[in-house]
C-alpha cells in the first residue's frame, strides 16, 4: 500500500481478540443484527397513496396571496423579479382604482427556472408572494412550466400557515 489508512496502520489498528479472530461468532453476530432488522418498523412512505404533509417552514412553489375580496396583494413593484437568481419571474405593472394604486397585469413564474430559494418571498414588501407547501410539479411540455396569475393566485386562507410562520420568524 502506498499510503497509510486507519485500516492498515498498526499504530491505530486494534488487536482482535481470539474470539473475534475465530470469525464465525462475529458473522453470527452480524446475522443476528440483520435478523432483528427484518421485524423493525419500515420507514418507507407509500408515496402516491400516502403523501407527506410539509411543515410551515417548507419552501414549495411560490404563490401570490389573494385577499378575501379576490384581489391579489401584489403591487407589482418588481423587487421579486429583480432579486430572483435564475430570472424566473416576470412582472408587468399597471394602474388600478384601488387603494394600492398598482397591480400586475402579467405575473409569470417560470417553474422550470425556479430554484425555490425563497428570495422573492423575503424581499416582498407586501408579503404578497409566499412559498406554498406544494412540491409536486411535473409538466409534459416546457410551455406548461410557465405559471401565470391563474395558477399563482391562491386564497389567503390556504397559505395562512406560511403567513403565521413568517410573522413569527420576523420577530
Amino acid at each position, binding site marked *: 500500500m502506498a499510503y497509510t489508512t486507519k485500516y492498515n496502520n498498526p499504530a491505530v489498528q486494534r488487536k482482535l481478540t481470539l474470539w473475534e479472530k475465530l470469525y464465525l461468532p462475529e458473522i453470527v453476530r452480524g*446475522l443476528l443484527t*440483520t435478523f432483528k432488522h*427484518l*421485524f423493525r*418498523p*419500515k420507514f418507507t412512505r407509500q408515496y402516491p397513496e400516502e403523501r407527506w404533509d410539509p411543515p410551515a417552514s417548507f419552501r414549495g412553489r411560490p404563490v401570490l396571496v389573494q385577499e378575501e375580496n379576490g384581489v391579489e396583494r401584489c403591487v407589482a413593484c418588481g423587487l421579486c423579479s429583480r432579486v430572483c437568481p435564475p430570472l424566473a419571474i416576470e412582472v408587468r405593472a399597471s394602474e388600478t382604482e384601488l387603494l394600492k394604486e398598482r397591480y400586475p397585469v402579467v405575473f409569470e413564474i417560470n417553474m422550470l427556472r425556479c430554484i425555490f430559494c425563497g428570495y422573492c418571498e423575503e424581499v416582498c414588501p407586501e408579503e404578497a408572494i409566499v412559498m406554498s407547501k406544494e412540491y409536486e410539479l411535473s409538466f409534459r411540455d416546457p410551455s406548461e412550466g410557465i405559471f401565470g396569475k391563474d395558477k399563482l393566485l391562491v386564497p389567503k386562507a390556504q397559505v395562512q400557515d406560511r403567513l403565521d410562520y413568517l410573522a413569527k420568524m420576523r420577530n
Partner: protein
Amino acid sequence: MVIEALIKIAIILFVVLTAVSYTVLLERWISAWVQDRIGPNRVGPLGLLQPLADVLKLLLKEDIEPRQAQKWFHWVAPVISITVAFTVLSVVPFGNTLTLGTNTIPLTIASGINIGVLFIVALASLGVYGITLAGWSSGSKYSLLGGLRSSAQMISYELTLGLGLLSVVMLSGSLDLNTIIHSQANGLWNIVRAPIGFLLFFVSSFAETNRLPFDLPEAEPELVGGYHTEYSSMKFALFFLAEYANIITASAVITVLFLGGWHLPFVSALGLSPLVLTIVGVLAFALKVLGLLFIFIWVRWSIPRFRYDQLMNLGWKVLLPLGIVNIVWSAFEKMYLMQ
C-alpha cells in the same frame, strides 16, 4: 419408464423455474426488510406478480452482442450455465417412493443412478465453464477478470466442497443419495454427525454459487458486472436464472446430504398411510430447502464481500486444513462412536 421420467422432468422444471423466479422476489423482499424498507408490493397482490413483470422486461430488452465478442462462445456460455444448474437436480431425491396402484415411482428423475454424489460434484465443476467462457468470449476486460476470478475461486473451494462431502460419504458408506438419506432416517442428521463437514460444505456452497460473501466474479464496484457485463436481454436472464437455480440446487443438495432429505423426525411414528407420508416428505423437503434459501439470502444482506487475497487465504489456509481434520474426525467417529 421414459414417459415417467419425462413427466417428472416436466414437473420438476416447472416447479424449479417458478421457484427460481420467486426466489428472486424473496431476495428482494428480504433485502428490503433487512434495510428497513418494504420491498416490491405493487405488481399484483403483495407484489406476487413481480417475477412475471421482471421476466417480461428482460424478454423485451434488446439483445446486444459486442462487436469484439466471440459469437459462438458468447452465445453458448449462458446455456452451459443454466444447463448445469438444472441438471444437478436430476439426481436429487425430493421425496420417498410414490405408490400409485401397482406402480412404485421413485421421486427422482434419474432414480437408477447410484453415484449421485459424484455426479453432483462433477456437474458443479462443469458450471465454472459457463462463467469462464462468458468472461473470455465477451472481449471485455471486466468480464475476463470476472471469469478468471471465478475459475480460481472454483478450484480453491471445490477442494473444500469435496472434503466436506467426503465425511458424509464416509459416515453413510455410500455415494448413493438415497442411501445417504436413509442413513439419516433415525433423526440423527449428518449436520449433527458431521458438523465440521456441514460447515465446510455450506461455506464452499456460497463460493460455488458465487453468492456473497464470495461473489468476486461479479463484484459490481470493481468489475462493473463481472462475467455478465456484456450480456443483455434473455442471455443475461439465463445467467440470472442460473445463479438462482444454483442456489436452489445447492440448498437441495445440502438438504439431502446434511439435513436428512425428506425425513422428518417423529413423523413415521404417527402411523400415516404411505401416500400421505410421501406427501409430507416432499413438503418437508421443500420446507428445508426454503429455510436454506432464506439463509443464503440472509447471509448475502449481512456480510460484506471478501477481498481476493482474503478469499484465497480462507480457502487454502483455513478451510482446507479444516477439511483434512474433518476427514480424520469422521474416520474416528465411524470407527469408534457409531458402533
